[in-house]
């Protein structure tokens, strides 16, 4: 059984996704349990694999017993293992959170929702752990399709947003596939490790250069890198509140991780074309950081504000890749983890507020600390983390990025990072001002206010768990970095 664990991480949620609509015919509670069980199994497997990988080294799982480079393999090195744990954990937390939102829906609809949710998780997990570039495309599309459908579940405007996202997303995936095609044409293999070997003398050939450009564009669209981010604000704003946390928190990070894999593991990062590509990406990301933060300040809808903020945050990760030394890469990986938790937490809070008072405009958030004290407390922690104040998690990932930038002498990025922290402070403190200070002119109506707790427990507990997670990731980031991340980045330890 233990040898099959690497496959189970992906296969169990997949099986559950296929079973969910059937089970839903019997009872909604059963399908909820099925989802949570499946994700729990995935979580436990992921953690077990992580521990095993840290002790014994990289784990390779060959599907069907076919050895690479002919077969498809899953590669579990420290980087993909920790990412798998991250996704499984966030998926589990959000799945629990989704419960109350689906109470009013018909049984079949609930089953479909959970099925899509599980498919999204499968796609993301698969993208993380696969060792084959075409397999990555397949999982990319699986997660994207599930994502489109989950976004569309949010209402009528959401359907349009989902359709437009579908068009752009497919363009992105096609670019990526084209890039993979060039790589295949040039090397004859699709296995990442094999590609890494064969590509070494080929790095300057025109086929590889075109491949790099295609892959940058493709992944850039998927992770909403400036200026390819146009789909993101609408998609995150109108998406079904139960799923937004997973989509916004995690789905945009996985292509960034894929970029890390491509440019540092598959290709040689110091080679001419890759280096130039990373420089360009870095500049675009820096522009995205500033413009994303400024646009966020101008927004009235909380979720749209968070969406523009995500554009900026992805920029940090790409800047980390662009700087390229081990400190900056540690910062980038740490920021992937931190931001996933932070953004998911923020979207959970937004969903919670929507649940309670039906509002998502920031100016209607007045005096929420009386109605939702714990939720707003978590909002404070998440806001402080996004701004980057110690000892929350956000400070430390920015710290590593700044250190990496200074070491390379790239003061430009230092200025950008610090400037954006101040910009983040503006719009986050404005929310906090509204929540804690302003008096509401009219009585804010409660839509759902049952029970002794401010929100149903299924929603409150995930919010608090993620909030505590931000604090824990911050305070204990040192063991995280030295035990795990240090071995995850290329070049091993520092």
């Amino acid at each position, binding site marked *: 059984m233990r040898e099959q664990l690497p496959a189970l991480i992906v296969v169990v949620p997949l099986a559950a996704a296929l079973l969910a609509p059937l089970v839903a015919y019997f009872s909604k509670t059963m399908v909820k349990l099925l989802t949570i069980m499946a994700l729990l199994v995935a979580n436990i497997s992921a953690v077990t694999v992580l521990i095993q990988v840290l002790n014994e080294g990289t784990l390779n799982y060959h599907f069907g017993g076919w050895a690479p480079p002919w077969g498809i393999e899953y590669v579990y090195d420290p980087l993909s293992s920790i990412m798998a744990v991250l996704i499984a954990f966030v998926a589990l937390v959000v799945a629990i959170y989704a419960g109350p939102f689906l109470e009013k829906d018909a049984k079949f609809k609930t089953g479909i929702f959970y099925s899509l949710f599980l498919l999204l998780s499968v796609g993301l997990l698969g993208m993380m752990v696969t060792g084959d570039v075409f397999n990555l495309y397949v999982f990319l599309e699986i997660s994207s399709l599930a994502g489109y459908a989950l976004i569309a579940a949010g209402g009528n405007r959401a359907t349009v947003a989902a359709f437009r996202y579908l068009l752009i997303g497919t363009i992105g995936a096609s670019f990526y596939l084209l890039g993979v095609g060039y790589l295949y044409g040039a090397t004859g293999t699709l296995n990442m490790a094999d590609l890494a070997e064969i590509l070494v003398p080929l790095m300057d050939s025109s086929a590889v250069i075109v491949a790099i450009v295609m892959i940058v564009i493709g992944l850039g669209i998927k992770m909403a890198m400036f200026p390819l981010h146009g789909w993101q604000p609408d998609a995150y704003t109108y998406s079904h509140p139960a799923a937004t946390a997973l989509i916004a928190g995690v789905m945009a990070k996985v292509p960034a991780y894929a970029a890390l894999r491509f440019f540092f593991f598959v290709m040689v990062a110091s080679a001419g074309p890759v280096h130039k590509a990373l420089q360009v990406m870095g500049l675009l990301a820096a522009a995205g950081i500033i413009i994303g933060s400024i646009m966020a300040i101008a927004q009235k809808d909380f979720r749209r504000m968070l969406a523009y903020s995500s554009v900026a945050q992805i920029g940090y990760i790409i800047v980390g890749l662009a700087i390229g030394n081990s400190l900056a890469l540690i910062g980038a990986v740490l920021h992937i983890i931190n931001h996933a938790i932070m953004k998911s937490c923020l979207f959970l809070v937004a969903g919670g507020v929507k649940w309670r008072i039906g509002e998502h405009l920031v100016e209607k958030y007045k005096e929420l600390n009386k109605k939702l004290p714990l939720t707003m407390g978590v909002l404070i922690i998440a806001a402080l983390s996004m701004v980057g104040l110690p000892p929350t998690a956000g400070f430390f990932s920015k710290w590593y990025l700044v250190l990496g930038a200074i070491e390379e002498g790239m003061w430009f990025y230092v200025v950008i990072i610090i400037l954006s922290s*101040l910009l983040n402070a503006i719009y986050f403190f404005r929310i906090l001002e509204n929540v804690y200070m302003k008096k509401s002119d009219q009585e804010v109506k409660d839509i759902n206010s049952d029970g002794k707790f401010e929100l149903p427990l299924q929603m409150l507990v995930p919010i608090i768990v993620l909030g505590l997670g931000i604090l824990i990731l911050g305070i204990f*980031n040192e063991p995280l970095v030295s035990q795990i991340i240090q071995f995850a980045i290329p070049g091993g330890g520092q």
Partner: protein
Amino acid sequence: MTPEILLDYRPLWAVLISLVAAILILMTGEKNRNLRETWTILAAFGKAAIVFSMLPLVLGGKVIESAPIHVAYGIILQLRVDTAGMLFAGLASFLWIVTSFYSIGYMRGHNEKHQTGYFASFAVCLAATMGIAFSANLLTFFVFYELLTIATYPLVIHKRDAEAIRSGRKYLAYTLISGQLFLVAIIWTYIAAGTGDFQAGGFLTLEHGSTRMLQVMFFFMSIGAAVKAGVMPFHGWLPDAMVAPTPVSALLHAVAVVKAGAFGILRVVGYVFGPELLGEIGAADVLAWFAAFTIIVSSLIAMNQDNLKRRLAFSTVGQLSYVVLGVSLMTPLGLLGGMFHIIAHAFMKITLFFCAGAILVTAHKENISEMHGIGKKMPITIGAFTIASLGIAGVPFIVGFISKWNIALGALQGGQWLYIVVLIGSAMLASTYLLPVAYMGFFKKSDKFTKYGEARKDMLIPIVITATISVVLGILPNFGAHFYDLATMSAQSIVHSIELIGGGW
């Protein structure tokens, strides 16, 4: 004379005790007011007990350290108690006790809202202040510095109305931006020198960078601290922050926050750059000019203010620059005077603010023009106000004189006569903007105050205590916590000279 280093966890407890209290306060809430206040009092006494228990060791020349905590790559948090840190911490912890009693009186007398948040934030602020005082390196200092900013924000916006929010925003803008500049300078230092550990006499030398680079670093670092210390032109947040309740203005904006800024300047000048290096790159002179400018201009502005708290705010701005001036003179007596002024000004200013708060709660008056003749009904309050005013002006036998005397002698030691003129001029200006208040309080006739009597006991007793201490320390500067000795030892360690000529008391 390398000090002996003792490993101990008391600095950590000093910081943590009020964090624990803050959580307890939040949990108790409005349900049981007396229990909630008890947490504050217990934490205050406990903190002071821990701090003062370390005093004999520090006076004996030893340094107490707690084990470093390795938080991230290059970030080592460590707490260390040396003479300068003990000075600041002793002051803050003692004054917290006094302010806590005063706060209870003020909050209940004025029937303030949001009291739980107030007391909890206050506790966190004091934890941050202890952290600042006991920081062993630049990064620890920065972490607690930012924590202080965050923790004081809820206190500044306490009233939650439009004016409070505006002042809060201004406060945040000033402090966060300067904090980022501070951070850049700190990172730069770490990269240039490989460490950020405070060392008496400084650890940076000309080998660590060109003169121009060191000057820019000093500039950034000073801005970070100078904003909190209210040096002009970065003082803008302080008068607006007076919208906060008076105990906040008293302890935080007369003692904790602004003194943290001054303490920061002390650490930067004395323990990072050091007098030798600063003399070589000539940067401290610029700081001294800003300080002198601030002293004069703030006094002039103070004379124009009718709102009592705003007048006291500008006075604080000026008085803080005494500390900055003394420290930037970099002579032994200048350093001694500057550091002792941290203590002296704290006691005097807190008395003044306490009186302002008492007048507000009892007679509901904020503006000086409405306070004529109030002394008849509130003699003790206005009497304490008079004593503190005389001290600010520099009258002998009150503690303010000692620090000014030393700063003046320090200026002489450095051969910089101009500053003595500045000191004398500002003393005269101080008497013109503070003493008339007392005069009008006692000697002008008015029928307006027949309804109210003297202030409440729980506000009056702290006033009397701090005023008395101002006088006692003026006669016996080493009474109690040996503040004078601590300041002397710190100055000595910075300048490495064995004898202090003249000066003292």
